[in-house]
């Protein structure tokens, strides 16, 4: 009978488990630990990689010691699943005793970690997720990415001013997509524009063709598009294949669809697409040129807006730590972050002291060729835009 031996095998396995659990690392007093939680696997992995790359780059450029503290980044993968984010955040806060958590590829992940940041009294730096409400969920959340209303309202106003009357919308069916859609509709309709067709696409969607055919049949002047970073390439390919460019239907929208790291692969169909966004790899500043060159040299491709969110996020932590003189207390850090202003690769940005959300320029850009490569070329700037989702209240 085998029950006896099984019992013992259980014991052995149990012992292994206990051993592994007990491997909790000791904490060094003179280090500053950042728990970085990103989607490194799964459908959002490209977001995670860009941010991770940007942080590595920043630390290479600026060293890893600030105000006598050695900066240590611990990377955890959450595959964009909120329950994993939560477990990872707790592990980091309680066992690793991190001084800040950062990253967060999607909105549910950022929200799941919010109560832990509040409880643990440590800053939570949101580097990617773009739904408006996030920063309201904990007084320790600071955002360095963007919010979708920031760019969507502006493209709405721009469309009305530039003679676009009828628009069909195609947005991904999740919180950021809905944020983008509502704020665009509000501003576009207020200016007298008309929405002729509205399609919400499932987030995990392989083939855009049938949706695009619907767009084409609705015969709008332009189509407003929001798909998350990474899906834009696929979308534009099929946009061209379906001949929507020839039918005179322009693409407008927040800049996610024209993400820099995919833009060049989209082909000439992308030419002329007008989007409003916070960052373009072609932003004509020295800071950006240096950033793009360094990023390309280190990782072989162009940085997108996700990378900039990560780059600015780690910069914010560095600067806050400098300002507190190495004090790692969460409240002091967040207080130091509030109102901080600096020149980012995307342009001048600051942290709103009231909402802890990012205030930044939003640029209207048109896809054009620069040195034979496709870039979003900025031609109009809206300065220091706050999150419209919160200004309203």
């Amino acid at each position: 009978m085998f029950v006896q031996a099984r019992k013992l095998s259980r014991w052995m396995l149990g012992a292994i488990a206990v051993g592994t659990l007990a491997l909790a690392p000791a904490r060094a007093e003179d280090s500053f630990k950042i728990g970085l939680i990103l989607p490194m696997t799964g459908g959002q992995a490209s977001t995670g990689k860009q941010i991770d790359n940007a942080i590595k780059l920043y630390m290479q450029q600026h060293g890893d010691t600030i105000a006598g503290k050695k900066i240590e980044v611990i990377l955890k993968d959450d595959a964009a699943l909120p329950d994993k984010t939560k477990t990872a955040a707790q592990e980091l806060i309680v066992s690793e005793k991190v001084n800040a958590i950062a990253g967060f590829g999607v909105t549910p992940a950022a929200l799941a970690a919010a109560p832990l940041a509040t409880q643990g009294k440590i800053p939570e730096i949101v580097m990617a997720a773009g739904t408006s409400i996030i920063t309201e969920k904990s007084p320790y959340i600071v955002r360095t990415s963007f919010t979708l209303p920031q760019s969507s309202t502006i493209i709405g106003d721009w469309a009305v001013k530039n003679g676009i009357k009828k628009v069909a919308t195609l947005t991904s069916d999740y919180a950021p997509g809905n944020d983008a859609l509502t704020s665009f509709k509000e501003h576009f309709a207020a200016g007298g524009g008309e929405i002729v067709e509205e399609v919400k696409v499932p987030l995990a969607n392989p083939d855009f063709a049938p949706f695009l055919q619907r767009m084409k049949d609705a015969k709008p002047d332009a189509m407003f598009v929001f798909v998350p970073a990474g899906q834009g390439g696929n979308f534009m390919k099929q946009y061209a294949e379906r001949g929507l460019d020839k039918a005179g239907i322009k693409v407008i929208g927040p800049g996610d669809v024209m993400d820099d790291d995919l833009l060049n692969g989209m082909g000439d169909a992308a030419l002329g697409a007008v989007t409003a966004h916070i960052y373009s790899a072609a932003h004509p500043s020295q800071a950006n040129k240096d950033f793009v060159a360094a990023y390309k040299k280190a990782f072989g491709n162009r940085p997108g807006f996700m990378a900039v969110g990560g780059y600015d996020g780690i910069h914010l932590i560095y600067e806050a730590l400098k300002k507190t003189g190495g004090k790692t207390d969460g409240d002091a850090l967040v207080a130091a972050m509030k109102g901080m202003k600096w020149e980012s690769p995307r342009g001048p940005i600051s942290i709103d002291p009231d909402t802890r959300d990012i205030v930044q320029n939003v640029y209207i850009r048109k896809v054009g060729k620069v040195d034979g490569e496709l870039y979003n070329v900025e031609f109009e700037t809206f300065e220091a835009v706050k999150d419209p989702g919160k200004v309203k209240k």
Partner: protein
Amino acid sequence: MTAVLTNLFDGIAYGMLLFVLACGLAVTLGLMNFVNLAHGAFAMTGGYVCAVLVNQFGWPFFAALPLAFISSAVVGIVLERLLYRHLYTRSHLDQVLFSIGLVFMSVAAVDYITGSQRVFIKLPSMLEGQFDVLGVGVGRYRLLIVVICGLLTATLQLVLARTRFGSRLRAAVDDPRAASGLGINVPQVFAFTFAFGCGLAGLGGALSAEILGLDPYFPLKFMIYFLIVVTVGGSSSITGPFLASLLLGIGDVAGKYYVPKMGPFVIYTLMIVILIWRPNGLFGRTAMR
């Protein structure tokens, strides 16, 4: 009216693509009775080989397509000899676990080698855009897919029905023991068929990059589609999966166009109903061994 025809055409192209991707699985799953959930990994291999050749080495698209086929077939035959053949006689559970393991490995490996962003293959300009036939928009690239896949299907059908190899394969599948008694080298036939199926998947992967997008999660995302094609189509002939692919393609496109919100729901329901109603597939033999 033209919208209906355009959708029909899109659906056919999509279905044909699914057929090329999945028909290798029809052989392994349907004929050799091996649950190979990793079939999409071979398709992905072909897609990436094609993408690298075209984008980085500047090969013309049409020259890279055969290479996509060959590379997937080679990977297929190596894995078949090394791993798969030991599992033909194992339980379905073992086969499922093994192939899921392979899928996980392939996903992470491709992610490691090429990064996780979507990859596109630069097409020759003659394949871009649409032209009108009597007011119906016909995508050039989709037309190419229909032509290539149509030719392939016809050839396959001929090979299976008319050639010596075809009859050997059918004999090996119907009764491996009797077939080897008649001097047919059954393992060889299986290995060759497996490799050929992988090659087709590779070709399909290369062709599908433009339409479905190619990223490391390809094998997981489309696994269910391949399985539907095979289980619904049955395995008695090439025509079963072919018709099933067309149905699936047209159904998927039409579903998204007319009822955008219901999307995959319709397809999964249909699949379950068909499986319950005819467990051997819509066009399958009435009795499976």
